[in-house]
């Protein structure tokens, strides 16, 4: 089963993302912060896709993207930013950090799954 890691400090977003992705046939690993996500990855996790929030309390999403690009197991893993942030500057910053795409909350489940399937086909 293909696995998607969702990183967000909002329990509501984590719950809804888990429900949407699992219904589409993906396995889901949740992390409520960038640090928690890195702990999972250091513990051997190898997600097929990472979806991360941008504005989180300690490590922000862009810093997490930079960290993920340093790890061998996520160097080429697609990373989607899922955020309420809509500024073009931030998008550009995320792109430079190594993010693969940008999704503005709230997102319709069908739209999200369409993008996820594009990134991780064959769930």
């Amino acid at each position, binding site marked *: 089963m293909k696995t998607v890691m969702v990183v*967000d400090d*909002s*329990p*509501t*977003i984590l*719950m*809804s993302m888990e*429900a*949407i992705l699992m*219904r589409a046939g993906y396995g889901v690993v949740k992390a409520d912060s960038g640090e928690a996500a890195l702990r999972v990855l250091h513990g051997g996790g190898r997600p097929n896709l990472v979806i991360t929030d*941008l*504005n989180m309390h300690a490590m922000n999403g862009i810093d997490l993207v930079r960290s993920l690009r340093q790890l061998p197991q996520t160097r080429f893993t697609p990373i989607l930013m899922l*955020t*309420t*942030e*809509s*500024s*073009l500057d931030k*998008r550009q910053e995320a*792109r430079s950090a190594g*993010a*693969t*795409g*940008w*999704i*503005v*909350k*709230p*997102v*319709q*489940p*069908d*739209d*999200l799954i369409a*993008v996820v399937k*594009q990134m991780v086909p064959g769930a």
Partner: protein
Amino acid sequence: MLALLSRLFRRRPAPLVEEDQGAKVALADLAPQTANVSAQDDADTHAGPQGEIIALTPRDSRFHRIHPHTMALVEEMQSYAGFVEIMQHHLSNVCTETQDAAENILGQALEIEGSVTGLVRHVGDTMQSDALLDATETLRVSVDTGRTVIADLIRQHHATQSEIRESLTTVRALSLKMRGHLGEIEDIRRYTDLLAINARIRIAGLGKNTGLEVIAEEIRALATQTGGLAQNLNVELNEMDRLVGDDLMARVSTQKRSDDARAQELQDSFEKLSRHMALLNDFQAALIAEVHRRSDAMRAPLNTLCGSIQFQDVARQQLEQVSRALSMISDHFVSLSNAIINEGAPPDSSIATCLSSILENYVMEQQRAAHRGEAAATAPKIELF
């Protein structure tokens, strides 16, 4: 409320009235009703000629005058911090409650979905379970076997009936044949009788004691005996014809009609059983299809709910922005009040600066647009780099 405001107010360090490097007099100690007599540490305060608050510093003897009305306004401005704190507390409660509600709604919805999915799986598993499939197959085979057996029995019954009728017909044909033989026997009797008569006539011509009378008498007796036998046979044949023709054939025909009717009923029952079994199979398939269809139909609104529930996170972030803005305004009021107390220059940040800072910190396009009083621009919601 006043107690709460007072409590919240105390959370912030009381702004101090500072005079150069001199003594410090707590603002709380400078309330108009107590200012005339208050003093702290090595500083001294007393009321001026017009009732103004005077804070004296012992080292350079400089003092600072604040009119009681101004002091009241300063206190009013300082109390905004408590007011803001209460509002922030409310906002925090709204965030927490909507967070709990959103989690609860989503959790319940997913639980319902889980139950329905479990039910669908159970129905599907049961309908397609080996036991049910075996039972259905066994029933179908039994019905087919029953139909075949009934058809064979009916066929055999018809064959037996036909054989019986053929046998009875043969018996009647034999009876007719025997009647023919009886006719021949009667002819022989008549001929024998004639022979006996002729014999007696010839004997009469030869005279008595020829010994031929005995032979003639024997021939006549033979003719009489043959006639009696033929008559008996005729009576018995008539009885046999009656039994075979009227009774047995009638009974066989009646039994055949009755058996045919029962066989038809049995056959009809098996046909109905077979049709109902087919109907049950159709209902079963339709039920499974309907359960799956409704399960799929339920997924669509649940999926929408999963998307819509994200409103809580969006609303939370907007409320956090409002809370930050309130803090900024509160701090601004504190800066203004401190400037008044210290008779210093206005604070560096104006309310316009605050607004500008708030605008820069927005993360949503609709917030920026609402701040500027404009319509939100339509940036792509999904962008792949």
